């Protein structure tokens, strides 16, 4: 039980996939222009990460070492196809706005990285804990980035169509830089420096 908790918690802060390991940066920057997109993307990543970690852990004694990477990629690609067909059918608006970043989860280094470094060496309960921890860590990071970008870039923060809050002057004159690609780099760079300054993340 203690191991289970340890593997779960490590993904949240200590080895957060985005801020600490700098993995899976492409989706973290590309879909964080709104909170909705970030949550949708994180949901897809958590699903794929969980399923692939479970399957890789179950198959770990059966897969020959030499073909393990291609096997992992096929497993991951299958789950990505499942989630993108599901999104296309039930949440078409989200599917449209995530665009090519949904199929690109296949090459997200977090998922292949966890399959290779963790799930292929550990039993299934730990692999589940690891996937949930890393997935929620990813969600936490993308939600922080997207909340900042959406608030500054459009003056208000909306969640599934409901406006959570709106900043009086800023919503008439939003700083649209933050919705541009450059804003994504700016926000994540400053957040990283901030987390290091306050000691949440160690300097490398």
């Amino acid at each position, binding site marked *: 039980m203690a191991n289970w908790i340890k593997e779960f918690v490590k993904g949240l802060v200590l080895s957060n996939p985005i801020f600490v390991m700098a993995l899976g940066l492409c989706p973290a920057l590309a879909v964080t222009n709104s909170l909705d997109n970030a949550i949708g993307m994180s949901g897809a990543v958590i699903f794929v990460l969980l399923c692939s970690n479970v399957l890789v852990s179950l198959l770990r004694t059966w897969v020959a070492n030499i073909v393990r990477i291609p096997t992992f990629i096929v497993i991951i690609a299958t789950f990505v196809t499942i989630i993108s067909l599901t999104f296309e059918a039930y949440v078409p608006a989200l599917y449209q706005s995530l665009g090519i970043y949904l199929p690109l989860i*296949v090459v997200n280094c977090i998922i292949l990285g966890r399959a290779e470094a963790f799930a292929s060496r550990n039993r299934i309960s730990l692999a589940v804990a690891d996937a949930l921890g890393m997935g929620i860590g990813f969600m936490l990071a993308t939600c922080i980035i997207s909340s900042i970008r959406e608030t500054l870039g459009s003056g208000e923060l909306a969640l599934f169509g409901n406006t959570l809050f709106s900043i009086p002057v800023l919503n008439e004159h939003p700083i649209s830089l933050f919705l541009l690609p450059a804003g994504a780099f700016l926000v994540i760079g400053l957040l990283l420096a901030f987390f290091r300054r306050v000691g949440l993340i160690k300097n490398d």
Partner: protein
Amino acid sequence: MTNPLAIFIGMALINNFVLVKFLGLCPFFGVSKKLSNALSMGLAVTFVMFAASAVIWPIHNYILVNLNAEYLSTVVYILVIATLVQIMELVIMRTNYALYSAFGIYLALITTNCAVLGVTLVNTSEGFNFIESLVSALGAGTGFALVLVIMSGIRERLDNARLPKSMKGLPVAFLVAALLGLAFSGFSGMV
């Protein structure tokens, strides 16, 4: 048919893969510490993108479309890219060892580079024909190489700069990327 030059400039500058579409960020931050490595990586990626587009276009249009199996495209694309990279690595190693030692080690990393899968997905979603796909792959690769070289030039200088401890390394690289991205946004609307 769209003007090939427009596609090339569009992929290389306006929709630059790294700075606008955020594809291939891992090598962008990982391999951009030295100018010579950056150039090799950029060339290797361009090469793989071109080859992958050339192979995937017929597979998509003659096999997947005919079988009504476009939903399998993600699985098929990644398998094709992985196989292609392996074959290319073997061929280059056997035929041209100088070339292999120049960018052989980067080839293995390229399989999981989202820029390569990205360019094939963009080609499909834009409905490009064969020639247009090749031009767009060349454009995307050139744009990637260009930004990687610019970035590594800046980072070589940054090593000598006096920075606050918490800004060193990755954070300042992100800020440089932000400024580069701002510069590249000046290209939008050019075509």
